[in-house]
């Protein structure tokens, strides 16, 4: 089952990439826990309602990632979310392929949720106007990560997502985005980003 992104999820991902243009960034995507557990292969797409920005800079070290995954897992349970995917924006603009580390994290998420996807941000097309979606989505099938064509169907409402993301990028809201690294630097920084979430809601 493919994933779909809400405006909030897409927008926070891009704000994270925009805040640290000189670093690689990554984060987790969460979806609402579905009540029925039927496993029909061609059901509704999984809607990623939000994302949690994790780290910037050196991504490939485990201890803080483990802390983040465990903490976010607890938070998900409290809010009836499940982890549904992982996003990453690489350090170099021309590099958009998921690396070994991305695959490992996604595999870890897949242990608990079978539809985990990897979303890679295409840095070379990141602009404030956001005319087109600039992500690549990879699904796991037959033991390989395969890229899927990204259309407007991959978004709950593309025109809304485009409008909100563009407005927040132009308004430099990314300066206020908090990722898990910021949280570890100062515990008062809230990685759920209530301020940004409110801005997104206000623009809807």
């Amino acid at each position, binding site marked *: 089952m493919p994933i779909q992104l809400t405006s909030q999820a897409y927008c926070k991902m891009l704000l994270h990439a925009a805040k640290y243009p000189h670093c690689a960034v990554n984060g987790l995507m969460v979806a609402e826990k579905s009540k029925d557990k039927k496993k029909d292969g061609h059901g509704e797409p999984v809607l990623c309602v939000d994302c949690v920005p994790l780290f910037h800079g050196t991504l490939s070290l485990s*201890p803080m990632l483990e802390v983040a995954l465990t903490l976010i897992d*607890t938070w998900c349970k409290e809010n009836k979310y499940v982890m549904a995917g992982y996003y990453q924006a690489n350090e170099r603009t021309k590099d958009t392929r998921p690396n070994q580390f991305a695959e490992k994290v996604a595999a870890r998420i897949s242990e608990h949720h079978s539809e985990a996807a990897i979303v890679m941000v295409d840095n070379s097309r990141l602009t404030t106007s956001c005319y087109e979606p600039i992500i690549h989505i990879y699904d796991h099938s037959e033991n390989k990560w395969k890229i899927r064509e990204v259309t407007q169907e991959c978004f709950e409402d593309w025109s809304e997502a485009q409008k909100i993301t563009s407005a927040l990028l132009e308004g430099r809201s990314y300066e206020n985005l908090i990722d898990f690294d910021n949280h570890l630097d100062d*515990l008062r920084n809230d990685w*759920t980003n209530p301020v940004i979430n409110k801005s997104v809601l206000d623009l809807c």
Partner: protein
Amino acid sequence: MRDKLRKWREDNSRNSEQIVDVGEELINEHSSKLGDDIWIIYEQVMIAALDCSRDDLAHTCLQELRRQFPDSHRVKRLTGMRLEALERKTQQPKNPPAARKRKISILKALGKSAEAIRELNEYLEQFVGDQEAWHELSELYINEHDYGKAAFCLEELMMTNPHNHLYCEQYAEVKYTQGGLENLELSRKYFAQALRLNNRNMRALFGFYMSASHIAASPKVSAKVKKDNMKYAAWAATQINKAYRLAGRGTKENKCSVKAVEEMLESMQITMS
């Protein structure tokens, strides 16, 4: 405004957008009052302008600098940076160390990690004391998942900077990532050392907790080691809870974080015993 720029220079912060905003205004409106400071401000603003794709501003600054310092190596290096930003090839002479470092950055930007690593190793044979270079090399190795060599670079940094808690903590993270009981024990020790140097380093505290918990949960350790590590983990858990409660005072949003941390610590307690 001058002071802001100076502070950002001293901290080596990469807040390029802000530097461009403040610097551009300073240059355009107050250049006569800056005296000799203006040259270092031109350099700082030029580099920030490149970061923000403001080639117009970068070009202006560079022109002023070239006019004032026509034969300077430093200005030539800045010219190289601008050309690199415009993705044109540069013809820097190989010898000056700063130019060699630029070349390594270019290799890294082009994705040629193996070559960048080789060049950086050659550079470090000559300039053994260059800490920035050792750190860069450790990052390159981490990205290549060569944790053993990354650890070696960090060991060099720890030897020359024994009071730097960040190097201790990063070394501990690399050891933890390498995995295995011995590395976990080493990682716990270095997280502890980082905490001793700075007891507010949350990463070190979390790292200490995680490594102690994993050692306690491992089936290969003796009962005494298990007991000791459970004690360490329990201590760390108390400190973590304390830190979160202190941070959460007065803000109701953070209550969710505090609760999440408490639950996480409890659930790990269960897996340990």
